[in-house]
């Protein structure tokens, strides 16, 4: 039995009069990858922003390792061990790749350990080492996504929140990035909460999934189950013929695991 790292109960949040979350509950087990699927505007990003302390919840609770963190300051939450790979990369465009990565380690006290992790990040993403001195704004979209992930890794988080890491990437690059996400989870034991529109790859990567619609969780379960669910297949995995292909690929990956 694994421990719960992140426990969200009846979370509600709104932007002015727009209610984005209407009572979301979820619980993430330590060392696992969980995913939240949902269409545009479902409220996925808002959940992550509530966890990170960017948006204050209106109601409900967020517990991290048993401590209530809902409404706490964003910098304190990072210090507690939750890092965020934001939607749309959000790199610091005029700073170098290396400076971006160092900012990821802003909350850390040991320079030596941070330096070790910098080397580790460079091993995961060798391209970042090659471009170390380049301005981050001049990287390609895929490279910026790698930088955003590497930057979050620099905090050595126990929980990594990832908001649509596949956004705007080619299928090949998406595969590459997700391979690395699995490796981070395996090598570092990092718990990962993954928000995705690319349901197929998210369900292949995660072990537990939630389906979010208009600010409510409408379905949850092991990803294997969700993958076979007719509703999920129809709405999130595209047409039925394609699903067959996806399912075959899914089985193949399962065999490797």
């Amino acid at each position, binding site marked *: 039995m694994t421990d719960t790292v992140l426990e969200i109960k009846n979370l509600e949040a709104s932007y002015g009069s727009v209610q984005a979350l209407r009572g979301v509950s979820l619980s993430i087990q330590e060392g696992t990858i969980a995913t939240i699927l949902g269409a545009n505007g479902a409220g996925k990003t808002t959940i992550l922003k509530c966890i990170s302390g960017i948006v204050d919840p209106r109601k409900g609770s967020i517990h991290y390792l048993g401590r209530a963190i809902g409404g706490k300051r964003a910098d304190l939450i990072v210090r507690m061990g939750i890092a965020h790979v934001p939607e749309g990369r*959000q790199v610091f465009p005029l700073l170098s790749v290396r400076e971006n990565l160092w900012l990821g380690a802003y909350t850390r006290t040991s320079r030596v350990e941070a330096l070790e992790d910098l080397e580790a990040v460079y091993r995961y993403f060798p391209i970042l080492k090659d471009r170390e001195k380049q301005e981050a704004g001049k990287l390609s979209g895929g490279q910026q996504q790698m930088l955003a992930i590497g930057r979050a890794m620099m905090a050595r988080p126990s929980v990594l929140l990832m908001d649509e890491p596949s956004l705007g990437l080619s299928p090949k690059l998406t595969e590459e990035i997700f391979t690395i996400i699995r490796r981070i989870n395996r090598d570092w034991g990092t718990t990962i909460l993954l928000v995705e529109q690319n349901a197929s790859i998210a369900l292949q990567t995660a072990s537990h999934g939630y389906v979010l619609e208009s600010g409510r969780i409408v379905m949850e379960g092991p990803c294997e189950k969700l993958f076979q669910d007719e509703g999920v297949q129809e709405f999130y995995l595209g047409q039925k013929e394609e699903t067959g292909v996806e399912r075959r690929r899914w089985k193949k990956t399962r065999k490797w695991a």
Partner: protein
Amino acid sequence: MLNEFLQLILSGIAIGCVYGLVALGFVLIYKATEVVNFAQGELMMFGAFIALTMGGLQFMPFWLSVVLAVLAMALIGGAVERAVIRPVLGQPIFSIVMITIGLGFFARGLASLIPGWGTLTHRLPTPYADQTVAFGELVLSAGHLMIILVTIVLCVLLFAFFRYTRMGVAMQAISQNQLAAHYMGIPVARVNTLIWCISAAVAAIAGILLAPITFVHANMGLIGLKAFPAAVIGGFGSIPGAIVGGLIIGIVEALSGRYLPDGIKDVSAYVVLLAVLIIRPNGLFGEKLTKKV
């Protein structure tokens, strides 16, 4: 002839440095918080008055009173941010700018009420007052020379701070992408307070440097009206741009005061501003990159 011209250029550079330092305060605050602090000149005025008051205490050496005045202004700058600006962040920029203009009026009024400050003009006694330094035929007042030297040192220090220290890089990060700065665990609100501290300290230094030349009075902060165009000329967002903009205005003013009809000098800053904006709408050092929120 040539000598006089060089002389004018040099004193223009010295005054331009002061414009540049005040402009730098505008730019620092704007870059981090998108607030244009129109009370920047009044922060400068307060710095000069505090140095005056402390210098008036007989037991205190001049240099110590300068250091204390600069530190005091850093605290005041931070306190203003914390008490007045932070509560209204998120309001439309226009309202916040109006608040800073109001702050400026308030500060001028306050200064004229404080005993010993008042509406009179004061002389800040400096150890280098009335001294001159000769370079061959050129004679430069020590006050002007001091301005130029201190500005150079300050620029080097600020450059090193923003480039090489963790806090400096974090400030750059905030100015480039505030949301992402939150995700890095940077305490954005506190760092912004610190930026106000730095801006106010720089303004205080500018005020103390300017004091031997224009004297200290409650309206000396109106120099902000020259520093603001300097910041815009530099691209409003560029630190070197602020200094260069200040130098351009200082030199143009000095020359037009001597060679052009009366009255031109006072508008020359705005003439230069218009000319620069027509040729380069983003200012001399303007970044084309638009800022993400």
